[in-house]
């Protein structure tokens, strides 16, 4: 039975006067099971993710945290032989209900992957791609405005504004990852899923991604999977610990890293696991 504190109150850390808000639940997962064929990868996961916070998923390799992340925008649907039980509610609507528009779901719930995967196109076209295929912009100037805003939101604009027509593949690894974040942000998702977004980056590029995550949570609900526990401690408001496909504990990040409620969590984060 996962331990979860009720009705989390989130302190907004911003340059504006500090205020405390009661967070609304953006994502609610109830009794989620997930199977790869006959192998059950997730067992009865129940968790609530408040709006506009950073939620980190931690746990050893194979614990199911990435699988769980991908259930939040049905990315696992593309894997043959998978099956889901339980509910994933976003704004109180079950995303696995019959008739769900999966394309629209993935527009609302964007994703950034471990390895940056820019298209072999220009920087501009990479960011504009989602806008064009979703036909979400009208005039050319509106498209340019949305691309610029997405690049600014991804803290990349100042580095690329003079070379928007050059290939995205000419960017550094860290810049490519921020470009992928800009691409995800361009279509204005409500939730951003990040699967180890900085694991292949150097410390400076990692730091930029982490600062970006901190800024983005003012507008987006962010869920991040990370193997780096210090990163989870640095960037997240709440942390969930997974083990063997089960959610062991979810709590405020400072609680998880200073005084977890479950001994297994403590053993994991103190490096005494197994």
């Amino acid at each position, binding site marked *: 039975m996962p331990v979860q504190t009720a009705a989390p109150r989130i302190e907004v850390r911003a340059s504006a006067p500090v205020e405390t808000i009661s967070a609304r639940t953006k994502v609610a997962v109830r009794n989620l099971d997930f199977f790869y064929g006959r192998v059950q990868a997730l067992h009865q996961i129940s968790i609530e993710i408040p709006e506009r916070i950073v939620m980190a998923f931690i746990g050893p390799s194979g614990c199911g945290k990435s699988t769980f992340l991908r259930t939040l925008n049905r990315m696992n649907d593309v894997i043959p032989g998978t099956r889901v039980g339980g509910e994933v509610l976003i704004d109180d609507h079950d995303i696995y209900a019959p008739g769900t528009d999966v394309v629209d779901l993935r527009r609302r719930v964007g994703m950034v992957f471990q390895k940056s995967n820019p298209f072999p196109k220009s920087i501009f076209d990479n960011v504009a791609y989602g806008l064009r295929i979703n036909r979400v912009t009208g005039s050319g100037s509106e498209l340019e405005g949305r691309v610029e805003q997405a690049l600014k939101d991804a803290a990349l604009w100042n580095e690329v504004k003079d070379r928007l027509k050059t290939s995205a593949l000419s960017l550094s690894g860290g810049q490519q990852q921020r470009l992928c974040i800009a691409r995800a942000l361009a279509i204005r998702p409500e939730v951003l899923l990040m699967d180890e977004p900085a694991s292949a980056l150097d410390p400076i590029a990692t730091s930029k991604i982490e600062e970006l995550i901190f800024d983005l949570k003012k507008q987006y609900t962010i869920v991040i999977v990370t193997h780096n526990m210090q990163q989870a401690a640095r960037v997240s408001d709440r942390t969930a610990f997974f083990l063997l496909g089960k959610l062991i504990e979810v709590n405020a990040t400072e609680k998880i*890293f200073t*005084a977890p409620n479950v001994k297994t969590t*403590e053993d994991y984060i*103190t*490096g*005494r696991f197994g």
Partner: protein
Amino acid sequence: MDTHRHLDDELSSLRDRVLLLGGEAEQALERAMYSLSERDSEVAQQVLDHDDQVDSLEVEIDRQCIDIIALRQPAARDLRFVISVAKMAPVLERIADHACNIARAAIDLNNEPELKSVLDLSRMAQHALIMLRSALDAFTSSDAATAREIIKSDSEINDLYNHTFHRLIELMVTEPATATRDARLLFVAKHLERIGDYVTDICELTVYMAEAAFIKHT
């Protein structure tokens, strides 16, 4: 050697060092009070001479805590342990400083005629020593319940201090010739009372370490 074994060894070494510092503080207090009650200025001087080693030990513990935090990034119970030790080391060093102040008072008093009674100072010192010893035991065994009991017992030292304070003021009025010596004894009593407060700090850190509960100022 795997990482957590390495961390375990470092935490164990840190525990040994802070207990060593605790032992030094305890011994300094015991010897300072002995020098006062037995009028042995040589022992008092030994307490003063030894204080540099106590200071060095505190600095070593500081460095070790900083190294562990910087290099091992401890979390949960390990973090609480390191933080508790980092905050406990200066407390223990201050207890040893108070013992040094008592030793200095003993040297001054031993140069003057002996007073008939040292009032409740021996009882205060004995109580402070028992509190300190028990607090270090509670820390070693992460025993929050015992730590809480020790905190309660600080009121006994405070009562003894208040009694001693009033008794010494009376003596100053009735026997003005001994006022200087009475004043010195009053300072000794105050040092012992402060040691009781410091032991309370140690116990609060033990409760934090064991239960992640902040009981300071509650």
